[in-house]
């Protein structure tokens, strides 16, 4: 409710400001999930966007930044509706955000069709990396398959012979399973796709029993948001650690870890995952982002937050490179393509499909100097990795 009031005030003030001087601001719409239990992810993204705006003094070149946050309610239809509102009613210059692949897939045409720019700060469905790629789409995250591919590669390196896969039944869940399957050389003993959405399945008793009975050597899961915490708990309660080592993608993150720690679920310490970013990355931009976030919120930012922070910085770099001329779409596009900003993950480049070509690392859950559970990079699995769908993109 508070968010809604703030939003109304923001929009109201936006109307008055734009009435006076339209060219003096750059308008950014940000679509994420602020309600439903998945709202914890949106909260982390929002905190990071706010921190980014604070770091740049709410200015991009000479232009003030006007941010309009919208809540997709974890639903593709609402996401599209909010995107339409941002594009048509608010007439924003950039739309950023999008946690969920199915929401992004439903919303993308509304943005690109109106010749605006869409910066995905999380979702990276295979369709948009491939056939449905668009000149006005850029990602500050990854293509969905890449992270699980890196994990699959690591499993090969470790000599794991067989795995059992669990993921939610939606666009990204299938990509996450396919990513591991495309790289992993051993046997897939079984796979469960579970119900997802606002009434997602959170009790995995039946699936865990199947995984145990399958005789697989390791368990690979993808459960973002609150489902991740629930999964880890049940994994430990079922006594599977030791018996069936756990490898994850986008499941054990800075959102889940504080709660897992509060629940004393020590089984998660030492569990391994792949990611393109980690709070402990040693570069100036990341140090500033992580330490200020810790100061403001008392917990580590998640990769969702890092990617959202990057989205604002990427937009800033493009706006500044074009001297604040938001009408010159070609120049903006060229500037976005250059990715000439200090990303918290370190430098990366864009492929033909506007997905990052970047490193992927293996992270491990550890305890930091102050006793907080966090993740630390163990090794680099892929260097400058490009997704497999880029060749299907005619750009």
């Amino acid at each position: 409710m508070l968010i809604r009031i703030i939003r109304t005030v923001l929009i109201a003030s936006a109307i008055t400001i734009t009435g006076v001087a339209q060219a003096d601001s750059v308008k950014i719409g940000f679509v994420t999930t602020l309600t439903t239990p998945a709202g914890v992810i949106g909260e982390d993204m929002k905190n990071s966007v706010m921190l980014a705006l604070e770091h740049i003094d709410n200015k991009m070149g000479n232009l003030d930044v006007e941010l309009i946050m919208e809540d997709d309610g974890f639903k593709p239809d609402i996401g599209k509706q909010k995107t339409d509102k941002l594009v048509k009613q608010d007439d924003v210059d950039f739309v950023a955000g999008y946690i969920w692949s199915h929401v992004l897939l439903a919303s993308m045409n509304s943005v690109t069709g109106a010749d605006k720019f869409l910066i995905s700060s999380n979702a990276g469905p295979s369709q948009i990396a491939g056939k449905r790629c668009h000149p006005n789409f850029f990602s500050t995250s990854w293509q969905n398959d890449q992270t699980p591919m890196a994990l699959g590669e690591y499993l090969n390196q470790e000599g794991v012979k067989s795995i059992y896969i669990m993921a939610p039944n939606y666009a990204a869940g299938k990509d996450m399973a396919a990513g591991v399957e495309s790289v992993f050389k051993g046997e897939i003993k079984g796979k469960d796709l579970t119900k997802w959405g606002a009434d997602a399945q959170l009790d995995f008793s039946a699936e865990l029993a199947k995984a145990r009975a399958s005789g697989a050597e390791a368990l690979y899961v993808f459960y973002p948001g609150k489902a991740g915490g629930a999964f880890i708990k049940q994994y430990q309660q079922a006594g599977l650690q030791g018996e069936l080592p756990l490898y994850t993608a986008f499941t054990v993150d800075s959102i889940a870890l504080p709660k897992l720690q509060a629940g004393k679920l020590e089984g998660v310490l030492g569990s391994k995952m792949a990611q393109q970013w980690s709070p402990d990355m040693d570069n100036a931009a990341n140090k500033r982002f992580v330490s200020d976030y810790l100061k403001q919120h008392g917990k580590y930012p998640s990769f969702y937050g890092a990617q959202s922070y990057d989205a604002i910085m990427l937009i800033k770099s493009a706006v500044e490179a074009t001297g604040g001329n938001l009408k010159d779409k070609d120049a903006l596009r060229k500037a976005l393509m250059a990715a000439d900003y200090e990303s918290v993950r370190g430098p990366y480049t864009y492929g033909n499909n506007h997905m990052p070509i970047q490193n992927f690392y293996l992270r491990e859950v550890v305890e930091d100097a102050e006793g907080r559970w966090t993740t630390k990079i163990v090794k680099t699995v892929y260097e400058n990795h490009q997704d497999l769908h880029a060749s299907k993109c005619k750009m």
Partner: protein
Amino acid sequence: MDWNLLVTQLMNGLQLGLLLFLLASGLTLIFGIMDFINLSHGSFYMIGAYFCGTVVAKSGSFITGVIVGLIGVFAVGALVEWLIARKLYRKDHLDHVLVTFGLILIFDTLVHLLWGASGMAIPLPDVLNGQLSFGGLVLPTYRLLIIVAGLLVAAILFILVTKTRLGMLVRAGASNRTMVEALGVNIDRLFLVVFALGAAMAGLAGMLIAPITEASIGMGNDIIIVAFVVVIVGGIGSVKGAFYAALIIGLIDTLSRSYLDRLLMLAMPSNYAETAAPALSAMLIYILMAAVLAFRPQGLFPIAGMK
């Protein structure tokens, strides 16, 4: 055939069914006796989990959390009956739906304001976090506890309904409310107790599930729909019906999640089967409800005298 797996899955189904029963028994009594559709019954489930979680965080004891939580939810239930529900019994179902839907929004927002959006983990004592093994069978201790607690509550409820004066009035009220009133029973007090007891049982279900999933906003709204399915399949107002229907639905849900994909793979390519299976298993309980409504609209175990 892996018998250990089958037994494990049957136990998982039983556990889910008993949780549904805790939720549905209150719902069916309120629906049957007061003719009151309470969509916000799931909010008691959520509040129970949050009360319990808060007390566990303060006291460190799960048992204390459950006891204090039960008293808390009972009080909230009584308050809701006294302040709101009582004024609505004589109104029609549309009013019930509108008001109780509003209550859901109020409770969700209250929880958001009090505890934040991020949900709450409830730590379990080490004894309950382990597993028990029987031969080759390994079951999480806590899930067994849910089964035992669920059966215990079912037994207490059975005795309460069949052997006590309160139960007699409840049964009489479910069959013919007007007659009970005409006989001079203090119907207001009866309704208050039934409503609050129903709320407490829903709260207990929430407390039991929260250490597995976690307490989160709207957790009751997802499961309340399934609880309504249980009420309809079992027969409105029938506690016995709710018990059997909850077990049937718990088993259908768990077993279809466990075996449907392999069954479908016999008939179609595996990549289709693994996508179709979760969608189909999510539908099965609604198909069951549709079948019950079509062929036996009074439910599987209707109470005597119910029209």
